[in-house]
């Protein structure tokens, strides 16, 4: 078990930034950490990265407590903050080399690690460029490289895609995809939920310092949207279909929207098949019958109330 967040509380004076967060994620998991601004995402990530001490509760990384032994726990954690490096007069290579030294890598081992990270993050062409002169996307790659330099088991990424152009986002997503296959436990926060949908297999949803949902995307989806949604297009009058559907058992709701009939259906996946065959049996000319897949954005909108603190 890589990361266990247990009953985590963090208060700043009277403000409760994190109120009893409990979740966990393991090797190979890419967990999306979503919530509006001020929900407690960055604070939680900083606690996991050992930069903040929790007011109550604890985080265990490979069984090591960040409260009791932060100096050991941080050896397993790579952290990419929401702010990018701003060192003056330092080149990309020197920056990565410095952090390799800071993590205690020595001699040939350090050179190997730096070389590998430079190659992986694709910064070999800009090694002699000064950090200040880099674009945001390139800085993000360098920051990711810094977080990976000591080959951590756990990666914490706070808004890594913020401010990146579409190409840089795609490249970042590809890098994360490779990292996920390397059996790392990854927690990533982002406001761009469609992007998370593509790379995450788990999600933690928070709002106003409270944890609303956590688990695999499928589980959370099941919990947040208990009914299956379908869209049907028939040749002919759609209103007759709506009438029929509203009399059909297990159909919760049906309405016509732009020539299509949208409905919600109770039951297992087979309920959809049964409905389709019943409709065809009753003479409806079904041109399209598709299940609408909910994504993280839908889950987020269903679960949260839009509050900020």
């Amino acid at each position, binding site marked *: *078990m*890589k990361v*266990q*967040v*247990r*009953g985590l509380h963090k208060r700043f*004076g*009277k403000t409760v930034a994190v109120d009893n967060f*409990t979740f*966990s*994620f*393991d090797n*190979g*998991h890419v967990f999306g950490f979503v919530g509006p601004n001020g929900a407690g995402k960055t604070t939680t990530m900083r606690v996991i990265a*050992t*930069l903040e*001490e929790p007011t109550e*509760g*604890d985080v265990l990384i490979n069984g090591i*407590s960040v*409260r*009791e*032994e*932060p*100096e050991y726990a*941080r*050896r397993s*954690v790579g*952290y990419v*903050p929401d*702010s990018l*490096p*701003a*060192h*003056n*007069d*330092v080149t990309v290579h*020197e920056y990565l*080399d*410095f952090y390799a*030294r*800071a*993590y*205690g890598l*020595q*001699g040939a081992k350090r050179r190997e690690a730096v070389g590998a990270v430079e190659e992986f993050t694709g910064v070999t062409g800009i090694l002699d460029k000064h950090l200040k002169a880099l674009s945001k996307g390139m800085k993000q790659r360098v920051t990711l490289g*810094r977080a990976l330099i000591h080959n951590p088991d756990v990666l914490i990424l706070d808004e890594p895609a913020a401010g990146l152009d579409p190409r840089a986002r795609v490249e970042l*997503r590809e890098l994360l*995809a490779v990292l*996920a*296959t390397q059996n790392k436990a990854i927690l990533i926060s982002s406001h761009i939920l469609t992007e998370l949908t*593509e*790379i*995450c*297999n*788990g999600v933690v949803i928070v709002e106003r310092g409270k944890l609303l949902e956590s*688990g*695999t995307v*499928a*589980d959370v989806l099941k919990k947040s949207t208990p009914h299956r949604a379908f869209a049907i297009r028939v040749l002919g009058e759609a209103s007759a279909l709506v009438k029929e559907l509203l009399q059909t058992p297990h159909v919760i709701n049906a309405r016509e929207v732009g020539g299509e009939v949208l409905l919600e259906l109770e039951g297992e996946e087979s309920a959809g098949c049964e409905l389709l065959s019943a409709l065809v049996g009753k003479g409806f000319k079904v041109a399209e019958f598709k299940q609408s897949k909910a994504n993280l954005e839908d889950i987020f909108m269903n679960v949260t109330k839009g509050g900020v603190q």
Partner: protein
Amino acid sequence: MNFPTPSNWRTWEPNPIVVKELRQAVRSWAVTGMLMVFLAVLFFVTVGFLLGQSFHISPNQALGRDIFQFFLPVLSLVGFVFIPVYVGGRLTAERLEGNVDMLYITTLSAARIIRGKLLCGIYLTVLFFSVCAPFMVFTNLLRGIDLPTVFVLLVIAFLLSILSLQAAIFLSCLPASKGLKLLVGLPAGGFMMSLVGMMTAMAHELMREGVGSRLGTWNFWGPALSLLFIGLLLFGFLHLAAIALISPPSANRALPLRGYVTGAWLLTVVVAVIWAVTEASPWPVLAWSSFTTGVLVLALLISAAEGDDQSVRIRRTIPEFGPKRGLAFFLYSSTAGGLAWTVVLAAATMVFTWLVLDGGLFDWLLALWRAGGTTSGRISHGDLDNFTRFLSTIFLYALAYVLLGLFIYRRFQPHRPPIFAAMTAVALPALWAIVPNLVLFFLNKLSWDALQERQLGNIFNVFAMKDRSFIVDHQLCALALVTIGVVLNLRWFLAQRAAFQPLRRETLPVVPPPSHDRAPV
């Protein structure tokens, strides 16, 4: 990671901070520009003096000294001001930009970070000194200054540069905003500039008398070693304080500092007594107790700002064994322990000062030193009469205001950070000193005489009393205030003492991770 030992010297690696900082310094226009300007100044000044000399008919027998007197302030300016400001400024900028956060999550310790910054500054200082040294030695060839004087002055300038550097690092570690740091930094910069003046004056004096002839005498080594001792103590304190300031709040930040101050206290007691006895004068002890009281008043405020919450990291290091735990209570980070430690040290300081000045200890030691010779009798003349009373009054007032500040903080503003208690402890005496005098001002009765009148509760009035007998009233007032403070805080203190226990493990819920799905990519 391998720690450097003689056996693994092949794998020794320099401090990463030093490597990074030096790389940055090499590229920095500030450093390279200053080095070029520095070299140019040295070169053109030398050429200027030599050309000027060529127009004189009689040779200047002290030309070397004249040039040296010009070089030294330039070197001092770089060593005391430029390098400390450069290193301190970089650290401040890194802290403000959040880059230091990234250092904290590496395996670098706070001590290594500070040591790295310091070492980088020392390298830069050595660089500038090595540029200047040939010019300075050259002055010896032009007469008017001997090589030992050049060497001694360079050593003094170098040591003061290191002290300034450490002070700058300490200031840049203060948890303050840019504006506040500038507010603190400006007087500090002014002090560093004044150090240049002092250095120049001292150099003038040493060159006038010549160091070479005095190197074998105690007249030289006595003050030199004393100043070195004081400088080393200050350096050590600033170094540990800087480390404590950048250590995470959950670390036991007070332990090394309190341990160091306690050790320094013991060491300085011995040095002050030896100095007093060899000089046959109580002034070293007076100076020691005054300075110690000042430090302890500061320690009271710092203790008040520490707060009650002890992190799990600290609690798991609290010893199980009773007496050890009792000692740990005084030294570990916490307000209650800090207050107890300060009060114990202050009481020891007062008792020791009283013993020396009024209790006959000084006479006895003096008699012992002179092997039965005549002594000066008890020291009870003029200025020394109320010295212990004066010091104890200052400390008691400070303690009383800190206790009141703590009570106000706990009772009315417990959600604010603990520094609120320290700020209240500063604000209370300030208000009490200002408000009555403001009233007098508006009643048109404020005068210098009025300020020197007895103003009980006003800690500043102790320094400006017209009548020395007021000190007794002040002492009684301070005692009364301390008693009130103790009564108000006793329950809290006892609760803190009782809560100072080793960590008992809590059982927290274990949450299994979701089923092991791979990323969908």
